[in-house]
């Protein structure tokens, strides 16, 4: 069965549940008020009657039937407002004393209990009476009652008020629920409309924000932030696509030309073919690097993240480049100031560091210096790779982190312009960041990664006086 649209909204369903809860609460509340007001009055009446019965019974015991009849007559006489009801009757219901003409038929055979009955008056009006009936002697029954007209009236008023109150509460709750459901639907319908338009291809659409700072606004804000991110990613992808096309067209065109020359030559030279292979290799390398960056950015490596000893990685990579640096007469200094462990991928971190050292060694002139520093401040691991090369102008620092950016001075060096892009991707995947700065002269690249919190390194916990064994 298909419910009407409004009935299916969660707000209205919630409203109905609340209505039921509300109804139960209101009924319970009225019940309590009834018990503590009308109930009290009733109990009072009963008590009064009981006291009177006890008193009359005592009189009967002391002064016999006649005395009792006299007292009843006197009391009837005294009761101006005619609020008390007395009846002393014999076995056959014949009245001996009191202000009720005959034993009420509905009270036949009843003794020792409370009863409500209606006393017909002389003028035809009917008076509701609460009465207690006792057997006081052989064949004698006594009825003592009170006019409870007021009580009955109050009860009537109370009943009416309860029904009206309950109806009103339910009505208001339902109305409020429907209004709330309608308003929620309207807000959600706006969001739905926006998302549908976006799905249809218009990514510039944004969800409306009312400024009410409620959860709808929060949702809209989040959706908008998500859309901004998607738009940025798409723009990035487009940029990469353009760059790939542009950057690979060059080598591929050269390759094609060379192959054409080889194909038409009478005696193709081996070196020409070898050069073709080399160029293909270069293109493949570029593709591989691009794939790797994409892979890293997709977060596919995250599942394999584990604790990585950064000190070891830094020392290993420095050692890997030490020989190459020596060869170029560059002083490569590895300055590990703290043992740091991070949560990540050893291989990716090593490759990022390799790329940085590769750049540093490549662009630093002979006689220069490259310093790799690993330090830890609070819960952040920081790796600096500083060189004394030409550096990167401040204006270009953001740009060189993008794929395929190669500054003019770099064009003479081998490379594909993807090294720093990978480093950035690796840093971001480790919830870290990458910053380029001025080493005056030269470039200083800093990678920051959140460090794993471990017990303090054993070296620092050693007493200062403890002699260190020579390594």
């Amino acid at each position: 069965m298909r419910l009407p649209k409004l009935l299916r909204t969660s707000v209205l369903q919630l409203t109905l549940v609340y209505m039921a809860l509300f109804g139960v609460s209101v009924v319970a509340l009225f019940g309590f008020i009834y018990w503590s007001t009308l109930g009290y009055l009733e109990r009072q009446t009963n008590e009064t009657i009981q006291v009177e019965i006890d008193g009359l019974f005592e009189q009967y015991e002391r002064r016999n039937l006649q005395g009792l009849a006299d007292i009843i007559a006197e009391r009837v006489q005294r009761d101006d407002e005619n609020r008390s009801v007395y009846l002393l009757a014999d076995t056959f219901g014949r009245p001996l004393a009191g202000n009720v003409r005959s034993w009420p038929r509905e009270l036949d055979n009843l003794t020792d209990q409370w009863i409500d009955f209606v006393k017909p008056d002389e003028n035809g009006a009917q008076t509701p009476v609460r009465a207690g009936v006792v057997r006081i002697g052989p064949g004698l029954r006594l009825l003592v009652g009170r006019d409870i007209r007021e009580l009955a009236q109050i009860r009537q008023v109370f009943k009416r008020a309860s029904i009206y109150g309950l109806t009103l509460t339910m009505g208001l709750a339902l109305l409020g629920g429907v209004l709330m459901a309608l308003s929620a639907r309207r807000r959600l319908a706006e969001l739905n409309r926006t998302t549908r338009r976006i799905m249809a291809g218009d990514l510039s659409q944004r969800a409306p924000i009312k400024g009410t700072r409620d959860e709808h606004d929060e949702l809209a804000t989040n959706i908008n932030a998500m859309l901004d991110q998607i738009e940025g990613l798409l723009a990035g992808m487009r940029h990469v696509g353009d760059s790939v096309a542009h950057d690979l067209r060059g080598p591929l065109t050269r390759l094609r030309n060379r192959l054409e020359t080889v194909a038409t030559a009478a005696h193709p030279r081996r070196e020409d073919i070898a050069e073709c292979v080399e160029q293909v290799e270069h293109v493949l390398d570029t593709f591989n690097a691009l794939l790797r960056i994409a892979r890293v950015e997709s977060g596919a490596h995250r599942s394999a993240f584990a604790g990585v000893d950064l000190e070891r990685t830094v020392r290993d990579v420095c050692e890997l480049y030490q020989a190459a640096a020596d060869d170029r007469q560059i002083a490569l200094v590895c300055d590990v100031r703290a043992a740091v462990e991070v949560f990540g991928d050893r291989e990716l971190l090593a490759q990022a560091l390799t790329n940085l050292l590769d750049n540093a060694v490549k662009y630093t002139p002979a006689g220069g210096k490259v310093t790799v520093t690993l330090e830890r401040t609070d819960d952040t691991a920081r790796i600096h790779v500083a060189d004394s090369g030409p550096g990167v102008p401040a204006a270009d620092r953001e740009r060189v982190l993008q794929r395929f950016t190669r500054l003019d001075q770099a064009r003479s060096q081998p490379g594909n312009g993807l090294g720093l892009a990978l480093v950035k991707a690796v840093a971001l995947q480790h919830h870290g960041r990458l910053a380029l700065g001025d080493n005056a002269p030269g470039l200083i690249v800093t990678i920051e990664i959140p460090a794993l919190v471990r017990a303090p390194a054993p070296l620092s916990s050693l007493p200062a006086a403890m002699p260190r064994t020579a390594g």
Partner: protein
Amino acid sequence: MRILVIEDDKDVASFIRNGLVQAGCNVDHADNGKDGLFLATTESYDALVVDRMLPGVDGLTLIRTLRASENSTPVLILSALGEVDDRVKGLKAGGDDYLVKPFAFSELLARLEALERRAKSGTEATSTVLRAADLEMDLLRREVRRNGEPIDLQPREFQLLEFLLRHAGQVVTRTMLLEGVWDYHFDPQTNVIDVHISRLRSKIDRGFDRPLLHTVRGVGYRLDG
């Protein structure tokens, strides 16, 4: 060497086959996992080259099946998937080495030879002294001598020489060295390995008439056996 190539891509298969035949190998080829598994279990080979993604039975299942039936023929896995976790999966399935497409044929050949060699020498007791010509490495005392003269090596140079000695007489590529000695599976852009090799060469070959460590152009290095 008798080699079975299980590869469904015709071009790649004939590229490998031609190269291996030229290198003097005896080559069988299967273009799907089922035939490949049949050949691998019924014939005897020195090594298998198995593509990871195959029609019929996929490469990793094929290797697992082989290993389950106690066939220990060395297996070189070929794959377009080159990330560390892919590699680990391949080796866990029972592969002995992992080569990412596209690859240079020389790399494939060098790795196959290394696999075959390892399979043959695997039964020998693990000796604590490695030798090549008059070069001697004592693994326990961490000493290297050539013609009786001690040679002082840095720890990494020692590891590098150990790797070369274990593959003496064979061509080892730069990536094999990077994997075997540094345990990195990526390609540094600059040829840092070359510099390490030339340092090692200056230590073990300088002053001797006969050089032991050779560069094989465009492929890698070879230490004379």
